[in-house]
């Protein structure tokens, strides 16, 4: 998955090249530096921002919203997905409906969340939850379906109890798909919370980014973009790392 050393070096080279291009375009004035401050200036600003108590506070607000939405959406979505997948009738009724719901852009519902919850923590968490739960349900049904009937028969023929079947067959079979679901749901979740913060909010990092944009504070804006990108990539890669460790047997 991670490839050989050559591929890794090539990837690093691409990232470095992007930053160098950014720096050059800005320094030479090919792109107006007021519109695109240099990479070095933006990264220096990033360091400065991290020192500010208000920025750290915004990050904390966003993190608590993201985590609360995630902790609510993932177990509940997984439970609903599991119940749907284990019951033929539910599966037949609910599956097309889930696809319908999934295809609707969630952002059009954001004004309703503001009307119901008001601008604040509950609205952000509610909207983050709403952005995430459908993908969790759909991924969990896929995870349950990845359990092979042959494996269940083997467990039964060697006298496995229900609990043994759950922990020794269902869980390991589903784990790779579940971890992937976790990773993808976090992308949806983070997108939802950031959008809600940018749309209408008094605090949170998304609010901060929107404000910097409106005030044409490009250095701060770019620094913020880099920061959120790094956090999102780090979480994604962490889960991917666990995924490859848990699913080395998948070929």
């Amino acid at each position, binding site marked *: 998955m991670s490839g050989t050393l050559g591929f890794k070096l090539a990837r690093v080279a691409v990232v470095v090249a992007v930053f160098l291009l950014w720096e050059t375009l800005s320094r030479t004035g090919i792109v107006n530096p007021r519109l695109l401050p240099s990479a070095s200036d933006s990264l220096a600003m990033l360091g400065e921002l991290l020192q500010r108590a208000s920025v750290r506070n915004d990050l904390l607000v966003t993190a608590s919203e993201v985590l609360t939405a995630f902790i609510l959406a993932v177990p509940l979505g997984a439970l609903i997905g599991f119940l749907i997948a284990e019951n033929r009738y539910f599966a037949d009724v609910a599956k097309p409906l889930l696809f319908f719901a999934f295809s609707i852009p969630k952002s059009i519902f954001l004004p309703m969340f503001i009307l119901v919850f008001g601008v604040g923590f509950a609205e952000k968490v509610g909207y983050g939850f709403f952005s995430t739960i459908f993908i969790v349900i759909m991924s969990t049904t896929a995870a349950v379906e990845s359990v092979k009937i042959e494996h269940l028969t083997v467990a039964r023929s*060697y*006298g496995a109890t229900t609990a043994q079947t759950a922990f020794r067959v269902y869980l*390991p079979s589903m784990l790779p798909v579940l971890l992937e679901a976790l990773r993808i749901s976090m992308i949806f979740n983070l997108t939802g919370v950031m959008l809600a913060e940018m749309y209408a909010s008094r605090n949170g990092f998304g609010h901060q980014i929107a404000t910097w944009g409106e005030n044409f504070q490009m250095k701060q804006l770019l620094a913020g973009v880099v920061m959120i990108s790094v956090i999102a990539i780090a979480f994604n890669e962490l889960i991917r790392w666990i995924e490859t460790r848990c699913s080395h047997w998948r070929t």
Partner: protein
Amino acid sequence: MQPLANITPLKPASRAGAVEIRGVGQVFKTSTQDVTALEDVSMEVKPGRFVVLVGPSGCGKSTLLMMMAGLRQQTSGTVLINGAPIPKPDPNRVGVVFQEASLFPWLTAEENIEFPLTLRGTPKVERRAKAQDALKLVGLDGFGKRHPHELSGGMKQRVSIARGLVQDPPVLLMDEPFAALDEQTRMTMGDELLRIWAATGKTVVFVTHSLTEAVYLADEVVVMSARPGRIVDHLTVSLPRPRTYEMLSGDVFGSLRDRIWRHIRKSA
């Protein structure tokens, strides 16, 4: 078909490893009609015999095997293993080897073999020792740490056989275990299975589509017909053991295979 009255009950002491099927029927109820999958099937497998079930698709030979494994219950009649009914799977009496892909891919070969013991809570040291013995028996000494995706098709089925034997049950049931293997591996695995069978003295009931495989492996071949599944012939293979590749082209082999083929062609 053997009439019921001809089956003389074995003495209880000698019934370890015996498989007795008496007047077994199986009816599947669907919303529109009742389908008779098996009708009045009776047969007896004496301890230590190698018996092969053959028949066209849909003759119920796999269904019959699942009944012997306690994985499915017959609508009527009796199935006895070691002289006792088998209302649910009992790994102490019966080991089952399935078609391909029945190993757990997230476990190593030895963990797969230990799986039945793990379920019973056998201590790890004892489990490992038994798994090692089973690996040796099936000719996979030293391959215990490999995962299934690192093993060839034939090796995977050796692991399945080891898993079926690890609790030392008197009866080994095999449901088309070599169906997914290529021809050469299949021949080799047949010889390997006969070696393991000779070494362990288990009763083996083996389901296959291949007539050559049936005659090559079996002491007795039970031929079934389709819709409803019935036993149409029960023949003894008189070829000496060990079986050799040369026997495949001999007259005895040919006439036995022809006899089975005529039954199957008639009912298919």
